[in-house]
């Protein structure tokens, strides 16, 4: 199972506590994980990436195994530790605001 850590406000929208576990078939990439995440939690559509273009929202970043994957192509396979579930894909919101 793939593990995903969502920021607080998205966990509230999806009505989940803690990490989300997902079954992803095929290559494990940011795009394939988000496709499954949005299919299971359709209320998250548009909150992480744009409805139409699929572009990551500018105040969000993706981390895997302590590495920033925000600027990689969403088609690039993620590390084995993500695919095996040993490590989570982390969606992080920018620290800003008040």
């Amino acid at each position: 199972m793939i593990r995903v850590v969502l920021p607080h406000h998205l966990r509230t929208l999806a009505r989940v506590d803690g990490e989300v576990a997902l079954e992803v078939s095929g290559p494990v990439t940011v795009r394939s994980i988000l496709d499954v995440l949005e299919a299971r939690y359709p209320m998250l559509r548009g909150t992480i990436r744009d409805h139409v273009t699929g572009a990551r929202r500018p105040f969000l970043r993706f981390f895997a195994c302590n590495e920033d994957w925000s600027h990689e192509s969403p088609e690039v396979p993620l590390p084995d530790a993500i695919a095996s579930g040993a490590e989570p894909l982390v969606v992080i919101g920018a620290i800003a605001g008040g």
Partner: protein
Amino acid sequence: MTGVRVLVGTRKGAFVLTSDGKRQTWEVSGPHFAGWEVFHVKGSPADPNRLFASQTSAWFGQIIQRSDDGGRTWHQPGTPPGEATTTPDGFPKGESNKFVYDTSRETGKPLTTHQWYDGTPHAWEFKRVWHIEPSLTDADTAYAGVEDAALFRSTDGGKSWDELAGLRGHGSGPQWMPGAGGMGLHTILLDPEDPRRMFVAISAAGVFRTDDGGSTWKPANRGLRSQYIPDPAAEVGHCVHRIAMHRSRPQVLFMQKHWDVMRSDDAGESWREVSGNLPSDFGFVVDVHAHEPETVYVVPIKSDSEHFPPEGKLRVYRSRTGGNEWEPLTAGLPQRDCYVNVLRDAMAVDALDPCGVYFGTTGGQVYASADAGDRWTPIVRDLPAVLSVEVQSLP
């Protein structure tokens, strides 16, 4: 009438304030959607238990929330978690936060550009929903005014939204320019006597009217003068902050413009100034008494550079003559050291007798008057900055 429900949007969530017809004691529920900006919450005139809320965030974008039980519980219209995201026919179910400008050949308009602050062309980009206006007659139909300025409509209870592209595309769109707070479509007035007529107002473009249900639009700004634009009497470009009408007389409109309080007696064909003896004719809100079409309320703000009440005194001004002659209403409002603002969507009136008047401040107070403005009391004092106030009169 058995009571009222005041719907408050703030910088950090929504609050629902309820009271009986006396409007003396209040129950406060919230924050709903804690930590999110809630630009607007409004109930359906066709079904008072149906509420729509615009929940928004720079991080996560736009969310539409709906309640079918008067604000006790909320959900995002559309697909519940765990259910298929497509219909049996393979069509996607509703995506209630999907606001995409219509550029289709059949129904849409080319996206073109609008003007940026410096006059250069700038691509149209959806940012948030500023205002939701439910239909007067159908609980499943609602209109959404958005930034960058456009008008959307849902006919399925908020599950999906389609642009009424004739507004953005009617011709003057490339000349529209944002105000300091963004280029938002913030006011939607539905004509109770003519379901095909509505008015919208945009900062800083002006007022527009449709007479065919939203297909075609025309500017309705004749008589406005704005010294801060190259042609003070231009057809568009005026920073209209708010317009209001009385339901019994929809051809009469009142406007709080950036500067100037204005009145139209011909459904926006022409405007004349009615600022009269106001201490400042800058401000954001304007509203009309529920039972007296010539009784109007504004909250003067010192200037476009100093967004707080003149002299540090929070005063609502009431005209009983449709403008020009204004009286300050101060009982119960702070008359020293008050430097809050009252934003454009943050005043409302109820339908009880005597008429109740409500407004919220950037300091987090929501003030109520149960006697048409003669005396005021704070329902709450310490909410986050108030963005919007609406009220429902409950049967």
